[in-house]
């Protein structure tokens, strides 16, 4: 579910892990204007190191059509060392190697293809470190 202009807008965070740190200390990878907890509107742009830990995870066996070829695949909620939370696939590993609390690093990978004639989508996935 991505079309080219929409995809382009997401490149800063998907390709380069550009994030925001609010004056309250809240760090978000998703582009926000307001810290949802404190209401702070003051922030600086930062770039995430890509290192983090798995908070919880699953193995997807039944996926939407665009991802079916990859099943079964691991999905995790990750908290980066800066405190940003995100959802990403964990790749280059067997599901039995994944554990809550495991250290991961975000890497640049292909995510999916938009059908036979659409663009190829890229973004971040995680590997165990």
């Amino acid at each position, binding site marked *: *579910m*991505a079309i080219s202009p929409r995809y382009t807008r*997401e490149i800063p965070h*998907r390709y380069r892990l550009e994030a925001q740190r609010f004056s309250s200390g809240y760090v978000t*990878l*998703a582009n926000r204007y307001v810290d*949802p907890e404190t209401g702070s509107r003051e922030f600086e742009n930062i770039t995430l190191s890509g290192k983090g830990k798995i*908070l*919880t*995870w*699953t*193995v*997807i*066996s*039944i*996926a*939407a*059509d*665009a*991802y079916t070829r*990859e099943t*079964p*695949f691991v*999905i*995790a*909620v*990750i908290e980066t060392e800066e405190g940003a*939370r*995100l*959802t*990403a*696939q964990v790749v280059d590993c067997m*599901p039995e190697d994944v554990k*809550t609390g495991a250290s991961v690093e975000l890497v640049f990978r292909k*995510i*999916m293809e938009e059908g036979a004639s659409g663009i190829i*989508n890229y*973004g971040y996935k995680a590997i165990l470190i």
Partner: protein
Amino acid sequence: MREVAVIGVGMTRFGELWSQSIRDMFAEAALKAMDDAGVKKIESLYVGCMSSGLYTAQEHLGSVMADYIGQRGAAAVRVESACASGGQAVRAAFMEVASGACDIALAGGVEKMWDAEDSSMVLATASDQEYEAYSGVTFPGLYAMMARAYMERYGLTREELAAVPVKNHKHAINNPHAQYPQPLTIEGVLKASLVADPLRLMDCSPISDGAACVILCPLDKAKQYTDKPVKIVGIGSASGPIALHDHADFTRLDAVRLAGERAYKMANVSPKNISFVEVHDCFSIAEIIVAEELGFFEYGKAGKAIANGAGTYGNGVVINPSGGLKAKGHPVGATGVAQVIECTLQLQGKAGKRQVENARYGMAQNMGGSGGSSVVHILEAQ
């Protein structure tokens, strides 16, 4: 605000309704509800639906449905809050009647899910499209991550988790509208195919077609239409983080807690007053967390309590007497309205073999996404 009552209900069977279109189903439910109440004219119509555009390429449902239930000219609008759309439609209709803007409102919900080829994609639109769905996570996947967090923190076992759908299937046996009124065993859950580890197919509510409608009017006029009006005494609605990863605690659903608190406050009752509750068990783990957020159990206790026999007849609050989303079926936009219908039938003493005896208060809890929204209704027998 004026006091508001439910004076008529109607719903289709839930299931694979291949011969019925989205408007056929809505018309069946709406006309049944109008006949039940004995009303011929609807002043205002609210249609709860999550994704008719993606499922059936039909938007503008307020107009479609008003036209096809013989109510051209009525005020008509669609209400959307993902899987909580139906409950939000009831709330919207309640507000209009309570405000005095109209006397006879119809709140309905509908979803035609079996017309879609890629239902996982459609359902994932209720999550955060840019930051969650893009990763390939599905809705079962999001709830699976909640289940893992809960099981690791509180020591809930896979077998104990299976007790939730087993209980709900047992309840659905007595529900003539249920999609799956068949018994289910613990072994049947544990042997079902994996969908998103640790959740298996029998932890997940099904793909369903269906519609459900209720008619609301001011309580002081309700006796003109029915001997057994049921009063809506409390409503709470709340939002939460759209993405699961933004929940401070993956074993909690803040929107449910907030909606419940608001409904209890408005109704001036507490969990101990509630005889039965229809909860949004889209996945087995959801029923457990929701039951805790609504105050029926302490945090970390509901899963083991249900595994030990809580949540069914003769053992405190009855959870999902209808069979819940798992066994009754989950046509997403219709679910919240169907929950209010179950509360109404129970409080009218019309629930047949699944009747909860001596109930004064019943509750319906409807939820969108992975806790992005929730709406809670408390109803009282008159």
